[in-house]
C-alpha cells in the first residue's frame, strides 16, 4: 500500500476531479491518495466521484482556505453499475 499526494491547488472543479481520476488510474486497490485543493467544491465532488466509482473517502478536512480529501482506491468495477 502506498500513499501519494496530489496538489491541485488553484484548479477549479471539475479539474481537481479529473486530475484525481487520472492519478487513481495509476494506483492499485488499497493505495491512498491525499488530494489538496483550494476549490471548496471538491468537498462535494470528490466524494461523489468516489461513490460512483467505488473508492472510499477516508478523511476530509479544511483549514486556511485549503481543502483536503484522502481517499482509498477501490477494486476494479466496484463502482455503481446500471446493469439491467
Amino acid at each position, binding site marked *: 500500500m502506498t500513499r501519494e499526494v496530489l496538489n491541485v*491547488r*488553484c484548479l*477549479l*472543479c*471539475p*479539474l481537481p*476531479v*479529473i486530475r484525481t*481520476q487520472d492519478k487513481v488510474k495509476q494506483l492499485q486497490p488499497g493505495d491512498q491518495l491525499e488530494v489538496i485543493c*483550494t*476549490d*471548496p*467544491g471538491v*468537498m*462535494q*465532488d470528490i466524494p*461523489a*466521484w468516489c*461513490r*460512483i*466509482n467505488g473508492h472510499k473517502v477516508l478523511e476530509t478536512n479544511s483549514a486556511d*482556505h485549503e481543502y483536503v480529501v484522502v481517499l482509498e482506491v477501490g477494486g476494479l468495477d466496484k*463502482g*455503481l*453499475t*446500471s*446493469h*439491467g
Partner: protein
Amino acid sequence: MNHPRKAIALISGGLDSMLAAKTVMEQGVHVEGINFFTGFCVEGHTHAIREKDKSKAKRNNALWVAEQLGIKLHIVDVIEEYKKVLINPKHGYGANMNPCLDCKIFMVNKAKQWISENDFDFIITGEVIGQRPMSQRKWTMPIIAEQSGADDRLLRPLCAKNLAPTLPEREGWVDREKLHSITGRSRKPQMAMAKQFGLNDYAQPAGGCCFLTDKFYSAKLVDLWKARQSKDYELDDVMLLKVGRHIRPKPHFKLIIAREEGEGRFMQGYKRDYINMVCTSHTGPFVLLDGTPSAEDLYLAASITARYGQGRHAEQVDMMITEKDGSERTIQVKPLAGEKLPEEWVI
C-alpha cells in the same frame, strides 16, 4: 446467448441527458456516463469562489446526475483539443462565441472514440429536435451523426421516434416503441417524464451549460483575441475571463480587478504569471495586469485600481506593485477621478 449491450451517455448535468440515459437504462442496457470538460463549462465551480454565491449549491451536476442514475461517470479533459473547435468552427458561431454545432459533433466524435476503445455498443445523447436554435434542429441531427463518425450508433432516446431507426433500434438492443418523440422548446414533456421516473430534483441552467453562450463572457474572449492578434488561448486565460472586472485602458494591457475577497484569493494563484498590484495605504482590490504595460502604464493602472478601493477619495494612495519575479515596489498615485471610466475601457 445475447451479451448485455453497453452504451455511453453524454451527461451534461441537465435534465435532458439524464432522461435520455434513464430511458435506455430502463430497457436493461448497461449505461455509463461521459462528460467533457472544455474549459468553458458552467459546471465548473467558478461561482463558488465569489462570496456572494456561497449560498449556491457547489455540486457538479454531471456527477450528481450520475449518482442519481447509479452509473459511472467518466470526465474527460478536452481543453487542448477543443481549441480547434472554438477557434475555427466549420459551422460558425451562434448568437455569441458558441460553436454549438461543431461542439456537439466534436463531443459525439470523442464519445465514438471512447466506445471503440472500451468495447461499448452505442452512444446516447439528450438531444431534442427544436430544443436549441443552432445544434438541435431536424437538419442538424444527421449532420452530427455523420460528421462525428458515430452514424447510426448515435441514439437520441428523447426524439428517436421522429428520426430514422438507428442500429440499436434495428438490432433490437432497445425497443423503439419505448423511446420518445419530443420536439420543440417546451419543457413540459421532460418534466412529466422526470416525475414519472421519480426524479424530483434536477438542474435547470437558465443560460445553458457553456460560458460561450454568454454575451459578456464572449465579449471578453473577443477582446483577448483582438489584443493578442491571435485566437490562441491557454486555460488560465479562459479561467480569468470568468472572474473580476476587466478594464482595458490601452490595447496592450488590461486590468483584472477582483470584485471581492473570494475572487482576490483565487487570482492570487496567478501572482507568478502576471504583474499585480494592491493598495497598501487603504483597503482595496487585488489586481492582475495582463499584457505588456510600460512604467507609465503602471501609474495609470494604479490610479484606476485606486478608484475601486477605500482610498478612492484620497488625495494620494500607496500602491504596491509586484513583478512576475516577485520583486516589489510601492508607488504613490492619485485615484483616477471622474464619475465613470471611459465606456470603451470596460470590457
